[in-house]
């Protein structure tokens, strides 16, 4: 039962989103001269196709299960017909670490949230350090050195050479950015 729900969940979710967007598409405001199709036609057509495909897949999974088969792309069938070594393509079951994934996503969200306040250099330094540690790399000296050098090099290259105005941060953190900019000769 649980595997059934898990298998159909993405299609149900896409169907629900598409249905909501279809509802929004019906409210698109436009004035088309008589007889012409409007700007709602294209998205509506795509959404209907997406909904129909999702409905087909759910019905197939629920009523026919494995007997319904799977229509695979050409590449898939070539791999299936290839020598036994081709198993490498399909990949073996690998151990997963969901807590690492969640920590990585959380850190990335915090980075985007704080970059305007802390400025590029400080925020990037902390992010790089944190990400390497979350990624189970434990040589503290290397982590700190690469994070520091990496943040400085990125700041120099993109602000001095490529002319991208990276976020400087708010006071008092912006003082660090200004100090480094003076040091690097960035105006």
């Amino acid at each position: 039962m649980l595997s059934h729900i898990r298998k159909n969940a993405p299609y149900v979710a896409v169907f629900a989103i598409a249905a909501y967007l279809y509802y929004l598409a019906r409210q698109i405001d436009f004035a088309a001269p008589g007889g012409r199709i409007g700007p709602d036609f294209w998205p509506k057509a795509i959404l209907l196709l997406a909904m129909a495909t999702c409905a087909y897949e759910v019905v197939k999974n629920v009523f026919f299960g494995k007997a319904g088969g799977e229509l695979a792309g050409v590449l898939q069938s070539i791999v299936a017909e290839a020598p036994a070594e081709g198993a490498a393509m399909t990949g073996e079951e690998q151990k997963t670490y969901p807590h690492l994934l969640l920590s990585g996503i959380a850190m990335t969200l915090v980075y985007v949230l704080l970059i305007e306040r802390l400025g590029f250099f400080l925020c990037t330094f902390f992010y790089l350090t944190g990400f390497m540690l979350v990624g189970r790399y434990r040589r503290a000296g290397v982590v700190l050195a690469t994070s520091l050098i990496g943040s400085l090099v990125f700041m120099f290259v993109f602000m001095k050479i490529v002319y991208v105005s990276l976020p400087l941060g708010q006071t008092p953190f912006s003082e660090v950015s200004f100090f480094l900019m003076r040091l690097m000769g960035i105006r």
Partner: protein
Amino acid sequence: MDVVLQLGTGFLAVFEPVNLLALAIGLVAGMLVAVLPGLTLVMGIVLALPFTYGMAITPSIILLTAMYISGTYGGAFTAILFRIPGEPLDVPLLWDGYAMAHKGKPAKALGWTLLAALTGGLVSTAAAVAMAHPFARFALKFDSPEYFSIILFGLTSVVALGGGSMINAFISLCLGLMLASVGVDGIYGAERFTFGVPMLADGIEYLTVMVGAYGLGEVLVRLEQGFETPPLAQGDEVSTEFPSLREISEIKPTLLRSSVLGIVLGLIPGAGATIASFVAYGTEAQYCKRREQLGSGLPEGIVAPQTASTATVAGHMVPLLTLGIPGSGATAVILGAFLLHGMQPGPQVFINNSGLVYAIFASLFLGVIGMCLMGYFAIKLLIKVLYLPEAVTSAFVVLFCFIGAFAARNNLTDLWMIVSFGVIGYLFEKFRFPIAPMVLGCILGTQAENSFMTSMISYQNDWTIFFTRPISGTVMVFVVLALAFPAIRHLRNEYRQRWIAAGNGRDA
């Protein structure tokens, strides 16, 4: 004669120090990206894009195309020596390349890949040079129905030719097309799916989708796996042994078949180097003289995928330059670079920018030779990057993703977009939805919709126009064939299995 002269001028342009430097950097970067298991070729090219913002258009495009071409070759080393395919397109090299290396002939296996990359690259570039100008002249006759049918063919090809479920690929494509329809529509000026967010009125940048889904998404997948890479075998004795002339003459048919396949598949939008690599291997499994030995370390099994995958690069450049239609993720990024520098590729390109076009072709010739020289002399040094801790490289990949997206519009909202598409990319991987159709749908969606709407307006909503005009009608037949082919193949396989199950297999 004119083409030779123009190409000569193109070579002179590439020999300018800045362009030559861009070429060299592109070749090295492409090789490194292909060698590192956590980085894909498209991802690498996306990440290199922000560095081109401050450059002139010629070195920018040369850098990205050089990365693209050397990226199709670099992964062969890790596939053959360590059984780690740097890119999905290198997977067929595991079957015969690794088998040959395992038999104690790694240098020979590397020699075959070098020959294959050299032949595929040079033959396809020569073919692209010969085809591009006549193709552009022909494309001048195209109207909106032709453009729509060609784009539709590209979109259906990516669904039909890919790996995994076609249903999932189709849903992924629909999502991409929907993303492209966000914002103010080009014909009526109506706002669609903007949810009151001013930035969405400009639409969703396809580069943001690519960077998020390919870059951050892949890093998140690897992070969930704990950045675990298989232990590496000893790689100190890396050398390349070029095959003899007699050996080369024995596999001439394979070289020819695979080069032609690579060029043809390169011309089809949606069919990338990975598909070419697998199809070429599959073709050898059917037509090669020693096909029963395939998988045991046969040169044909190494040469076919490598030749075809390298040959697609020049093939892909033809629709990109002459129609403005990118056929793969990598060419989509290159199109992005063109647009960022204020140039729209298309049928007029030979009238307005022929110098740049021939410089690109010349850089492809030099790039192929350069990457082979690099593969021969410097590979020992390049594969050292395999020993870099993946947590460190991945942290920098995420940083590149952010800067790349931020630099394009100087807007922090794009960073939120990246994170969103990163999570979507991760979920796609998790639930086995391919990312490529979504990305291609997002890239080609606007062009598809505009050409469809223009056709409908010009021909009074007569949808049969796509089938009744000679060129678009022919392409539409290919669209139907592309969709029907996997279904026919599926039915044929089921019939064969039933036939075997019925007890007829013994006689087969």
